[in-house]
């Protein structure tokens, strides 16, 4: 008998069982990954499950009179502007001291081990996993000075967690439990580890509405968790966003989204408070609460509340007309806005705008494929530009911009660190296949300059 291999292969695959492919899940996951590629994620998010805000966009002349980026070049922002080409080179031993480093050689093959943050007493929150069908995660505290480990008891949580507080007395991790009814929101949970008793406690708040999965909760200066409940959402124009010169949808100048601010106590599941404030993005300094009117779209109002006196003021940050606010941070008397402002023939217009809490412009870092996040008194600027890829540091104290690395890994790694520390990640080795992420090296440093 002769067996034709082609025929046998086709026959073997000729009668598949019913197709239960979940296209909605494909779209949800795809959107999340697109967002992850384009936006700096919140502290503590990591590997393949990071959530962030959308950066979709608009190009072409519109009824609203927005400009036509396909026919023009990247505009210059108002006020002082610097670019990545203006950066000096940071030097180990001069600008920073290396504290610890960890490499994952190939994160496509298997999940790895990560630095998820640093406690106030200088220990690294070290995570292995998630691994296996149960998404098992193992956590430990690593002393970078001695190499000593303290393995933490198991935490019964299948969802992704991210650190809210890494204190001397307690660690607080947040997670959001999703269900099928609302793919981008869910029930907030906090897992508190008592470092003396070495035990986890999980807190939920029955009185708290479902929270957004795309806005990370933050810890306020009063120790409460501040979290957004979705309020309003912008919608794309009829027919969807046009495609920009880079082939990506372009939603610059989009209508933003808002949230209602709630707060909860880590110690009491009945302590839930509607703060009566609608906002976009939120940040705290030691003595002020700062928020934007909207986020993930244009924003023309920044509010500042003095936490001691309750005095409040607001101002127009004078961001570009097409600038979508993607991230907000604050430190001391500085406010930092990370924005996407459109795609033009000569590239993306991304900005990290730095203002005083009084609304005065300090500087704007402008680049193609950059974003920024506040880390203590530093702004960690991440650049995806091929020739200028890497991590840069803008020092809010002396207004210097320094380049720290010349590569980035494909992953969103890191977490909160105490003032004076900085954590970054770089690619491991040469990336051979653009479809694969490769490996990553995380570096923890103490900023000394």
């Amino acid at each position: 008998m002769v067996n034709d291999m082609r025929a046998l292969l086709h026959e073997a695959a000729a009668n598949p069982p019913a197709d239960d492919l979940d296209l909605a899940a494909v779209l949800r996951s795809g959107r999340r990954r697109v967002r992850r590629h384009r936006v700096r994620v919140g502290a503590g998010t990591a590997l393949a499950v990071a959530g962030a805000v959308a950066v979709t966009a608009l190009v072409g002349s519109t009824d609203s009179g927005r400009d036509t980026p396909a026919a023009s070049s990247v505009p210059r922002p108002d006020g002082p502007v610097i670019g990545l080409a203006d950066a000096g080179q940071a030097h180990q031993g001069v600008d920073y001291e290396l504290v610890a480093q960890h490499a994952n050689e190939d994160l496509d093959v298997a999940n790895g081990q990560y630095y998820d943050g640093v406690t106030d007493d200088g220990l690294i929150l070290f995570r292995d996993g998630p691994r296996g069908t149960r998404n098992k995660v193992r956590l430990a505290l690593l002393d970078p000075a001695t190499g000593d480990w303290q393995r933490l008891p198991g935490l019964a949580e299948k969802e992704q967690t991210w650190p809210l507080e890494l204190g001397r007395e307690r660690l607080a991790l947040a997670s959001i439990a999703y269900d099928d009814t609302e793919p981008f929101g869910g029930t907030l949970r906090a897992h508190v580890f008592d470092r003396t008793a070495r035990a986890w406690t999980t807190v939920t708040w029955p009185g708290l509405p479902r929270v957004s999965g795309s806005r990370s909760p933050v810890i306020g200066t009063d120790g409460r968790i501040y979290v957004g409940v979705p309020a309003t959402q912008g919608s794309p124009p009829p027919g969807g966003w046009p495609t920009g010169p880079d082939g990506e949808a372009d939603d610059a100048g989009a209508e933003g989204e808002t949230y209602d601010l709630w707060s909860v106590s880590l110690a009491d599941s009945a302590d839930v408070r509607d703060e009566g404030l609608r906002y976009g993005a939120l940040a705290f300094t030691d003595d002020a609460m700062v928020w934007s009117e909207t986020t993930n779209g244009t924003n023309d109002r920044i509010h500042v509340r003095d936490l001691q006196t309750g005095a409040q003021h607001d101002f127009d940050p004078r961001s570009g007309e097409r600038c979508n606010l993607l991230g907000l941070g604050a430190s001391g008397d500085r406010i930092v806005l990370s924005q996407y402002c459109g795609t033009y023939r000569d590239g993306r217009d991304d900005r990290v705008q730095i203002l005083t809490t009084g609304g005065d412009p300090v500087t704007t870092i402008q680049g193609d494929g950059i974003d920024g996040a506040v880390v203590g008194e530093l702004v960690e600027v991440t650049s995806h530009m091929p020739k200028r890829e890497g991590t840069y540091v803008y020092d809010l104290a002396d207004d210097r911009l320094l380049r720290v690395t010349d590569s980035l890994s494909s992953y969103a790694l890191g977490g909160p660190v105490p003032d004076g520390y900085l954590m970054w990640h770089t690619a491991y080795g040469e990336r051979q296949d653009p479809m694969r992420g490769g490996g990553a090296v995380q570096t923890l440093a103490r900023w000394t300059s």
Partner: protein
Amino acid sequence: MRDEDEFVAFARGSRDRLRRTAYLMCGDWERAADHVQEALIRVYVAWPRLTRAGREYAYARKAVVSVVLDHTRRRSSTELVVEADPQRPADLDVAELVSARATLMQVMTALPPRQRACVVLRYFDDLSVAETAKALGCSEGTVKSQTARALDRLRSMFDDSSLGELTLGAGTW
């Protein structure tokens, strides 16, 4: 927002074919569906630049191959999964046909993953050596050598059985 309607139409139109390719590579329909789902997510992310270049399906197939090979690398054991096909064409010698298919799938599953991928891409998807090399991200020489080794093994298994000779049939290129 992207042009999701176009992507959804593409996904609906291609998923069945992609699932068959994935199944032949991994030997399990359920896992094949998971692999296609992951591959389509990767396609979604790359969609704007794919539609401009008109290479959506080739990218999707490459993504399936990549996902299956990645998954194979992650598995700690070499699980053999062979499903007997419950649907039987009426006009063929069922016993011989099922036996030949089952043998082929069993030997396929035991092949090293990249050899298996070469066989599926060349003799199920009817890709040329050059196209297979692109899908696998390797040289044409590697495709030739991997395919030759796979065919040797497959043929020897058939030769050693009572099923008779295994031939390659006619290609479409």
